[in-house]
């Protein structure tokens, strides 16, 4: 069974582990690094709940083979606040503004889709500080939520975007 030494920087920390070639990034993150915030939903690229960042780009961990992201920087939901804090040295953040907005706007019910939604939404806000409703819908179109009806989620992204602009 082919395996190799995998080197990743996960949430700012270098990680090295031996992994079988067929391991997905989702298996590495959840089963080997025990970061369970990244969810294992459909495992087929359809639901978006396994979204994390690979070198800053939101990607689906379930359809990404770990070996193909050798030496990349991974940010998962557990590391998002840390990433945000680093961008804003003054602000020792416990939460990324979008995480706070999700809580305030009631954008979380069962919570299963939330980490993926937040990782997708945070990347959108990083690249597009004041997104239109259509841009938010497009960016989050790969994320399924079976509880909220999406309205509160869209409002949370808008609210976080406004707050981030005000504080910038």
């Amino acid at each position, binding site marked *: 069974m*082919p395996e190799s030494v995998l080197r990743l920087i996960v949430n700012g920390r270098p990680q090295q582990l031996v992994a079988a070639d067929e391991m997905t990034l989702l298996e590495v993150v959840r089963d080997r690094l025990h970061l369970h915030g990244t969810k294992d939903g459909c495992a087929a690229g359809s639901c978006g709940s396994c979204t994390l960042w690979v070198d800053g780009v939101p990607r689906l961990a*379930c359809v990404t*083979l770990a070996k193909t992201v050798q030496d990349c920087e991974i940010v998962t939901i557990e590391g998002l606040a840390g990433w945000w804090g680093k961008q804003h040295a003054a602000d020792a953040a416990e939460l990324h503004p979008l995480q706070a907005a999700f809580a305030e706007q009631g954008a979380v019910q069962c919570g299963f889709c939330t980490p993926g939604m937040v990782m997708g939404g945070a990347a959108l806000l990083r690249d597009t500080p004041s997104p239109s409703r259509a841009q938010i819908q497009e960016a989050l179109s790969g994320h399924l939520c079976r509880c909220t009806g999406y309205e509160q989620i869209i409002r949370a992204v808008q609210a976080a975007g406004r707050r981030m602009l005000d504080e910038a």
Partner: protein
Amino acid sequence: MMPLRPLAVVTPRGEEELLRSLAVEGAVPLGGGSDLIPGLSWELASGDALVSLAGVPALRRTDALADGSVCLGAAVTLAEVARHPLILGAYPALADAARAVGSWELRAQGTIGGNVCLATRCRFRNQPPLWRDALQTCYQSGGDVCHAAPASRTCVAILSGDTVPALAALGAQLEIWGHAARRLPIEDFYSGDGAHHISLAKGELLAAIHLPADPPTAAFRKWRARESIDFPEANAAVSAVWREGAWRAPRVFVSAVGPAPVRVVAAEALLDGADWSEDLLRAAGELARKAVHPYDNGQLNVAGRQIAVRGLVARALGDLQNARRERGL
């Protein structure tokens, strides 16, 4: 998630190593994996060694060539295609088609080569293994029956890549590497048999897509169940050149209605040099509807998909008219 069965992942850095890796028995090209990985996990695809194309610089390039054409490497992602200035400038219909694929995350991962080579899809096959166990094994899985078209001797699964009709309407050529390099128009790449839908020999891969210099004006349209991430239930692209007061050399392609794109020659004949009135565009749409014969293996029903084809073609032709007026021609 269901772990994948043991396999090797090969990550060549250069062309020679790439071709050598692909020549090995059981080797399969790996683009972004957005279709191949779910396919492997549902036992729809097979392969002992996945050869990643992402590390081969020649496959990652988008180059404007001296003759005015553009060469798009097969491992360029759909997100890159959709935002590249060369594509947005000269081939906006291709950018539209790339943007119509899946979700933001899928476009960041999926490649244009993977989209062109994408496995065909069928409601009776793209299901988890347990679901499929209830059905007799069909042609595409090595059996001798087709649940979608019981009278058919071959698989009629659906070619679902959204960029295919756009590339065909633009007159794109595919550059294939293997024992020898070869080039062919994209519409000749598809065999019409859903189980072996692309003409690649063992060890070959799609290396690049060539977009012509002085491209025609083109437009792409897609119909799907949910506007968000779904595969096409039908898609269409048209192109033509505005010369001496009329549209010339029209190309009309409909796809996602069978294993290969359908060129609607009758509509092209009707449109060439004619006065493009609304009625004419509708008539062209009707010819397209008659030219396609979808089977009941998509998500939406056959009649709906046929009617959609009529509308997609008529509207895409209308898009060309609008583009012309915007340019003041």
